């Protein structure tokens, strides 16, 4: 089953396309990073997946065949919005009570156990919590509804390093426990490398890179060699990005099929951050799976 499938999805605000021609098939049980610069269309895509806004064109299906925003989808999908909005004047306990009254499936002991683990006092007003505690309350509230798919929009952007680590640790423990599918957006790539196993890169409203993180990293190599040979070598290879100095040139190449290292050149593995940055610097390059694997059924009437 796919957690999320989209076909030729697009969203236009006035005359501007925030997202265009977005076709994705994200398998269930993965932790997916949605990466791109500010304004790339990340939040637009997330809001359509959650059902907060309607596509201008194209189709979306979540958790197999559910339409975003349908009653089934709302029960089975969790959403933690940017800056994790909660009511600052409510206590943590009242926040739990509020969500409980709004949610058909609500696991109060689960939420309380999570907050107790983190030493977050239930009587404290949400507005008096630290940034990390605030984010943890939002996560605990989302997880206690036992979603099958959890969507998080820039969940750790404003947290300090320790709070980020603790937030991701809590999220990963939930993935290990319940096998939920997770989609989280970020413009900081470095912190996602250990957490995510599937990558979607958006740039300028279009999908640029999609795939399993290990396969993507394995499928790219860094080649270093003399600049005088760089043109000849580049012509033989699928070059994503390059940095040239007078004497030495560094290339990031895709190695699917042709992997022979030219004589006198050095080959090294790359990492997720280097790979993503190279693609973002080269908007004409893309790494997308072929049309196979797309099996979207029409869900919109």
């Amino acid at each position, binding site marked *: 089953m796919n957690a999320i499938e989209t076909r030729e999805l697009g969203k236009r605000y006035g005359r501007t396309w925030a997202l265009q021609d977005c076709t994705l098939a994200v398998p269930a049980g993965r*932790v997916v990073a949605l990466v791109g610069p500010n304004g790339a269309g990340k939040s637009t895509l997330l809001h359509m997946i959650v059902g907060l806004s309607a596509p201008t064109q194209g189709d979306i299906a979540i958790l197999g065949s559910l339409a975003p925003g349908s009653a089934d989808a709302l029960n089975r999908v969790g959403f933690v919005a940017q800056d994790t909005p909660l009511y600052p004047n409510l206590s943590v306990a009242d926040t739990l009570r509020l969500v409980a009254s709004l949610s058909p499936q609500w696991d109060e002991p689960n939420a309380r156990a999570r907050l107790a683990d983190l030493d977050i006092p239930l009587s404290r007003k949400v507005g008096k919590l630290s940034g990390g505690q605030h984010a943890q309350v939002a996560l605990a509230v989302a997880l206690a509804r036992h979603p099958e798919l959890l969507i998080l929009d820039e969940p750790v952007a404003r947290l300090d390093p320790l709070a980020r*680590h*603790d937030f*991701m*640790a*809590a999220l*990963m*423990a939930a*993935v*290990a*426990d319940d096998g939920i599918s997770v989609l989280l957006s970020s413009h900081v790539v470095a912190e996602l*490398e*250990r*957490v*995510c*196993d599937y990558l979607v890169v958006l740039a300028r409203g279009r999908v640029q890179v999609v795939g399993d993180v*290990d396969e993507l*990293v394995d499928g790219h190599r860094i080649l270093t060699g003399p600049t005088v040979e760089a043109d000849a070598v580049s012509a033989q290879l699928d070059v994503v990005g390059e940095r040239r100095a007078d004497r030495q040139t560094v290339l990031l190449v895709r190695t699917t099929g042709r992997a022979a290292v030219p004589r006198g050149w050095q080959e090294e*593995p790359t*990492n997720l951050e280097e790979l993503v940055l190279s693609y973002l610097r080269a908007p004409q390059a893309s790494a997308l799976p072929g049309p196979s694997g797309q099996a979207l059924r029409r869900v919109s009437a």
Partner: protein
Amino acid sequence: MTIDKESSGGVQFRLDPTSGVPTYLQIVRQVEHALRLGYLVPGDQLPKVKDVVAGLAINPNTVLKAYRELEHKGLAAGRPGQGTFIEGTLDVVPLRDQQALHRGLTRWLSDAMAAGLDEEGITALFSSALHDATRRKGVIAS
């Protein structure tokens, strides 16, 4: 000072984000290292996936991949519903042999330094020779 206690398993994993070594491979190597040093022996349980994940904030699939690799190498085995346990051992070179090899290497190092190589030159030369030797061994073995 606070000490994190791990609720399962006899080892603590740590990750080096700057090493360039994939996370799952770092875990595999740390288990092998612990086996060589005797921190882990057959029958020991490896840390539960959830505990590793909650401690290091990493994807559970990464830990599962590391444990599958250890199973593939015959060093560990999964027991349904319980976890992953150490099964095999790594060949431990007897202490006396290790000491003899150490002496040989020390002699070689003084020769290299006398010839004018510095630490980085020695490391580069050693890595290159090791690379050649393992490749030769691989050719003979296959």
